[in-house]
């Protein structure tokens, strides 16, 4: 840790950028990677895990799969089901990227489960925010702000997360239907007391994952009346969606991530789509130009991220309104006055 803070202090003094990196599994995400690599993998290990408190605290370099394994031994899970995108994925990268998986629409996002964090800011100062308890409203909620900040505000040393019990039963159903009907159905079902924990539509087929008490899962499966997938096929399918190893994601066509109100009608854009999160997340593989995609998504009430592409000339993330851009610059300035932490990774201007 002292090594980290020395490195940051030196870089700040010399105004030389640092690129915070764990396993590098999310190097593709965001904009340009600039600066000398600050490797976090040496700072690993679970600091505290109390299953009955539903809280785990671990160091940033801890492998995500190690955390999931430790939780699994106590029959618990990271509820936001984060994608790893590779065996080397670390906890720090998971929080910094702020990406959640299939369970997001029902369970919540990465930031929803962040309880506290210890960081080194851009001056190399050690700061602790939040805590290891469920409810904490002392001071601004900086630890949640860090989720998805792409390492631009500080180097996360330790993070505390809320965890949940693994659902006792799970079952996946497949139903054939076109996108418009799938969107309508997913929204309608989400308004009923059904234990739907994940949804994915592609290629005229909607898959629903039910999770919860065996009785509730069984009753819902009967009511929804789809074809049941075998346990193994289902696990493979959801893993493919979460890790983007599903055939939908194959190939070199740019991959866009459209985040929309769940009930927004199908967005009419060239390319193919995979719909998740009850309609709130739509993956688009399309060669259309950035402005076309961003404008159509904005008109539908959302925003579009260029998730994977060889080049991102228009930037990975949708541009911010003027006042929000100002707030971003000022916040960045207050955490990292020398502008050395992952500069340009989120927006070119900082």
């Amino acid at each position: 840790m002292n090594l980290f803070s020395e490195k940051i202090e030196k870089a700040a003094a010399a105004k030389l950028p640092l690129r915070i990196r764990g396993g590098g599994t999310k190097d593709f995400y965001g904009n340009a990677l600039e600066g000398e690599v600050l490797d976090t993998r040496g700072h690993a290990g679970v600091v505290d895990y109390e299953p009955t408190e539903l809280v785990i605290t671990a160091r940033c370099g801890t492998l995500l799969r190690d955390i999931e394994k430790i939780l699994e031994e106590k029959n618990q899970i990271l509820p936001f089901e984060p994608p790893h995108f590779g065996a080397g994925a670390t906890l720090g990268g998971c929080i910094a990227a702020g990406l959640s998986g299939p369970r997001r629409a029902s369970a919540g996002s990465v930031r929803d489960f962040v309880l506290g964090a210890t960081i080194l800011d851009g001056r190399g100062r050690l700061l602790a925010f939040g805590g290891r308890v469920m409810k904490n409203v002392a001071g601004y909620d900086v630890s949640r702000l860090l989720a998805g900040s792409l390492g631009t505000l500080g180097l996360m040393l330790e993070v505390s997360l809320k965890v949940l019990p693994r659902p006792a039963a799970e079952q996946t159903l497949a139903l054939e239907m076109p996108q418009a009907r799938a969107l309508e159905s997913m929204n309608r079902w989400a308004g009923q007391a059904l234990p739907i924990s994940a949804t994915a539509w592609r290629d005229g087929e909607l898959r629903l994952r039910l999770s919860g008490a065996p009785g509730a899962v069984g009753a819902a499966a009967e009511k929804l009346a789809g074809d049941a997938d075998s346990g193994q096929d289902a696990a493979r399918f959801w893993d493919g969606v979460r890790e983007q190893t599903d055939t939908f994601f194959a190939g070199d066509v740019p991959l866009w991530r459209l985040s929309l109100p769940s009930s927004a009608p199908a967005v009419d854009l060239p390319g193919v789509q995979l719909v998740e999160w009850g309609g709130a997340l739509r993956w688009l593989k399309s060669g259309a130009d950035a402005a076309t995609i961003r404008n159509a998504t904005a008109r539908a009430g959302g925003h579009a991220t260029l998730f994977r592409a060889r080049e991102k000339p228009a930037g990975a993330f949708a541009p911010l309104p003027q006042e929000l851009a100002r707030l971003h610059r000022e916040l960045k300035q207050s955490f990292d006055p020398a502008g050395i932490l992952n500069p340009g990774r989120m927006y070119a201007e900082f």
Partner: protein
Amino acid sequence: MGSAVPQIDFDLQKKISVKLKEFLPERCVLWQEEDTRPYECDGLTAYRRLPMVVALPETEEQVQRVLKTCFSMDVPVVPRGAGTGLSGGALPPGDGVLLSLAKFMRVLRVDPLARVAVVQPGVRNAAISDVAAPFGLYYAPDPSSQIACSIGGNVAENSGGVHCLKYGLTVHNVLRMKGYTIAGEAVEFGSEALDSPGYDLLALAIGSEGLLAVTTEVTVKLLPRPETARVIMASFDDVQKAGDAVAAVIGAGIVPAGLEMMDKPATHAVEQFVHAGYDLEAAVILLCESDGSAAEVEEEIAKMKEVLGRAGATRLAVSRDEPERLRFWSGRKAAFPAVGRISPDYYCMDGTIPKKRLGEVLNFIGALEKKYGLRCPNVFHAGDGNLHPLILFDANNADELRRTEEFAAEVLEKCIQVGGTITGEHGVGVEKIDQMCVQFGAAELETFHAIKRAFDPKGLLNPGKAVPLLSRCAEFGHRHVHAGKVNRPDLPRF
């Protein structure tokens, strides 16, 4: 605690009132003492201050103009919702404008398919669930004050309630907020999608106690109302056993919809008041709720009964029907007013601890009762470790008031010491500003001030709340020496 002597600058008062009346109707600008007196405090009545001017805008444009006017004149602004806050977050400025959002009472849109409601900040928490009810939906966070508190205040405080272990806090149930910075710039954080580009400013703004922006519109998530719910009342003859039972329930893989604890003094106070049917012999009772489909609830209740029984419950009663379930809850929800009936005054505290330290902390509170000669019933959101000790005192007795303050400070510092926090859901406001110096170091407090400056460079929006000045912490350290050790030796002393 204490009340401030009114020191109104009458020239400034007149100047501001005249300016505001250029665009606000006469009835929306209050400055005469009989009109401003009702605004002198919020739910933390021990702190009172007469506002210089009260502005009650009726449109967003008027809110913006109030802010622009105050910003250009360097006049402080304190936003206020329903005034039910318990930490003095809406304590008025003696030298500025109290900006009441009480007239923003409209539900703008309910979308049953997308399961969202767009509401103005003055809409009451419970009213949101009322308008959602015809669609089988509701708004989950349910602070005890839900019939009176407004959603704008909930956003400012990140309010919780008795069901947040399963359903989350305000931050988990709000999708978007719209409002203005102190300079009158329009801002929108979040959206009706599940995320937004850039930093999560919505998460930062929620719970910021009105220090970063003034909210004029909120989009909340609505959830399907569970088909059914039942609650177990479990009696224990020992606090530690009850604490272990809470851990055992969660360890068994159950996340109860509600998991509340009340000690014997609390159940006795409540029982006289609402006749909830509590076991008055028990040292503590737990209320443990399950909700969902009928099959799910039956499975979960059976499992919870077994776990609680094994953990040493001396009695278990399961609500047989909805009226009985509501009666079991009525006692918990009425705990504060019930305690108000057995004492001239009570001081409701709010701290969070790791659940495993419960026995230790309750014993510590028991010892403090003897030390200070004051009674302190306890109610506890056991599932999420959030304590609400209620110190009974008489405000007319200066010495009792002093002892209450010292009692409370010791409890909060104990919370920090066992790895918890000084406020779980009521906020810092003015009440806990000194304890912030114990919870955070100089570098964190500086970071908070830097965040504040990004939104409010002149420091005009709700000044003096939530985050203490470093100089104040240095002074607090002087006053507050524990066992010969000075707090925060790392702070510069002024």
